[in-house]
């Protein structure tokens, strides 16, 4: 028996090590790619700091064909559209996930889950078309705005793009909470809502937070739909009213201008610099999110252990 298993092990040794190597390589390649991308962004984007004076780069005027490279309105535009999307998507997304995981009868769940998955697969350009054809004029008429191509229209589309991700991932997280937690809460006399709000949701917190980050990650990087409906006017947002006026995001700027720009020109470097800013923002969001999750997990372990 022992001799046989040893020969078997020897027979499988070569493929075994090969597969292990391949998996190790693909693991490290993820790190390599991130480093390469950052290196590429840095070499193409950092010359912008040398070529453009800082007070020009951080001014309020973006008009690249006349050498006005103020990126503040673009950063502001991306932030306001993304924050608007978060305010819409997070409550709706988590609410739907709670309904599907905790409240809905079995048949409704069987229908809702695949529907959400289909929604997640919709190409953003399709949503953009709906935004241009239907949403923008509907918003213009119903809110009595001068134009329907506003940051808010973009936020609604981005929310629609990130909601399916938020629902899907946080529903999985809620589903993974052990049955016994709910039973215990109910046995102690908690109502259904109290069980969800005080027990199930906190227990699934890290998964739900991951869901929100993944959804918003899709939102801040989204380009096509935003470019079609936000009007692309580089105005520095000043206050809440900016949500209902046209705005221009960083992604839309890169997408619409990169195609025509002369390779190696100042404008080209500035567009890559915007890429660096975008990269840093999503890095910051991700680090904050994982720090929060990590701290909560430590706390949960202390409480439960």
């Amino acid at each position, binding site marked *: 028996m022992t001799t046989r298993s040893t020969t078997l092990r020897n027979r*499988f040794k070569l*493929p*075994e090590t*090969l*597969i292990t190597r*391949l998996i190790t390589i693909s693991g490290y390649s993820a790190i390599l790619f991130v480093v390469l991308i950052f290196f590429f962004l840095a070499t193409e984007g950092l010359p912008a700091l040398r070529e453009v004076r800082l007070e020009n780069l951080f001014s*309020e*005027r973006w*008009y*690249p*064909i*006349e050498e*006005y490279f103020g990126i503040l*309105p673009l950063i502001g535009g991306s932030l306001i559209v993304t924050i608007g999307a978060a305010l819409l998507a997070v409550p709706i997304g988590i609410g739907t996930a709670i309904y599907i995981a905790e409240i809905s009868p079995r048949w409704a769940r069987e229908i809702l889950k695949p529907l959400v998955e289909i929604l997640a697969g919709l190409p953003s350009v399709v949503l953009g078309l709906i935004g*241009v*054809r239907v949403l*923008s*004029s509907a918003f*213009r008429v119903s809110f009595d705005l*001068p*134009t*329907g*191509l506003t940051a808010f229209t973009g936020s609604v589309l981005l929310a629609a793009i990130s909601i399916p991700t938020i629902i899907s991932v946080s529903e999985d997280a809620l589903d993974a909470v052990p049955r016994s937690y709910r039973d215990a809460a109910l046995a102690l006399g908690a109502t259904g809502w109290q069980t969800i709000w005080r027990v199930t949701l906190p227990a699934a917190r890290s998964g739900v937070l991951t869901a929100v980050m993944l959804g918003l990650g899709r939102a801040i990087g989204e380009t096509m739909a935003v*470019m*079609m409906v936000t*009007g*692309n*006017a*580089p*105005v520095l947002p000043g206050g809440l009213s900016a949500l209902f*006026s*046209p705005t*221009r995001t960083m992604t839309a700027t890169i997408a*619409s*201008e990169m*195609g*025509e*720009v002369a390779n190696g020109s100042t404008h080209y470097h500035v567009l890559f610099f915007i890429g660096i800013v975008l990269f840093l923002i999503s890095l910051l969001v991700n680090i904050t999110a994982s720090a929060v999750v990590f701290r909560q997990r430590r706390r949960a372990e202390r409480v439960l252990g």
Partner: protein
Amino acid sequence: MYGIIRGMNPRRLTVIFFLLLCLPGCSSTPNQRGDENSPQQVEYIENKGSDTIVNLALAWAERYQEIHPEISISVSGGGSGTGIAALVNGTTDIANASRKIKGEELEAAIENGAEPVEFVVARDAIAIIVCPENPIERLTLEQISDIYSGRINNWQELGGDDRVIVRLSRETNSGTHVYFLEEVLRLGDDENKTLFSTDTLLLPSSEGIIEEVKANPHAIGYDGLGYVTPEVKTIAVARSPEGEYILPSAATVNEGTYPIARDLYMYTASQPEGTLLAYLEWIFTSEAQAIVEELGFVPVPVSDPG
């Protein structure tokens, strides 16, 4: 093959799968065609210049090469100045330009022994459009400039309804945007450094502008005449308040009475002959001028052979 696969264990199969993935990269069948012994001598036409015309020149070149496979036309952009400089240096056969050749360029060309010949191959006109609900019918160039620079912000100031003006423009990388900036916003004055008002909406496509203008009574937009559809209202434009207000059309553009229009040129270094002449003559046929219309420009009068 299948027998062998069935006899193997899954791990080995995986290895083979990955090896198979690598295969297409390794196998390179020598299938380059021997072009040296093609029967016909290929003739080249070099075509360079204005970025405004580059798409039109490309469309012409593609169509012409379909009819005459023995001719190869290479088209590149770079700007009107680049094209004319290349013509002066003799590195291109045809220079595309969205402006007339300048005095000093002409002198430089003559010094190099060239005698540039000019052809107006198409015309470019910008129509100013508003929503059909908007009562405004006509504007002067200066009023349009004031609207886009942000000096006029309400239609009331122009005798219209009390509505905020929403300014629509093409993206900055569009040739139409640059032409509009120079000729309308800055009224053709090189010293004028007026910029678009920051709240001007920059839309990525002509369709986007038409879509917004047709439904929104606040909006004003501009676009290449060829892209304008009947769903929007075209504004009659005058050079000055005393001048005549003229609606853009192929006729008014070709007469030169519509103010926001320009000629698009092709220049050759000398009186064209042979292949070059045949190509330039073809550009003035109705077939080639139909392409002009498709791309949103205004065709010039055609001279079909026979």
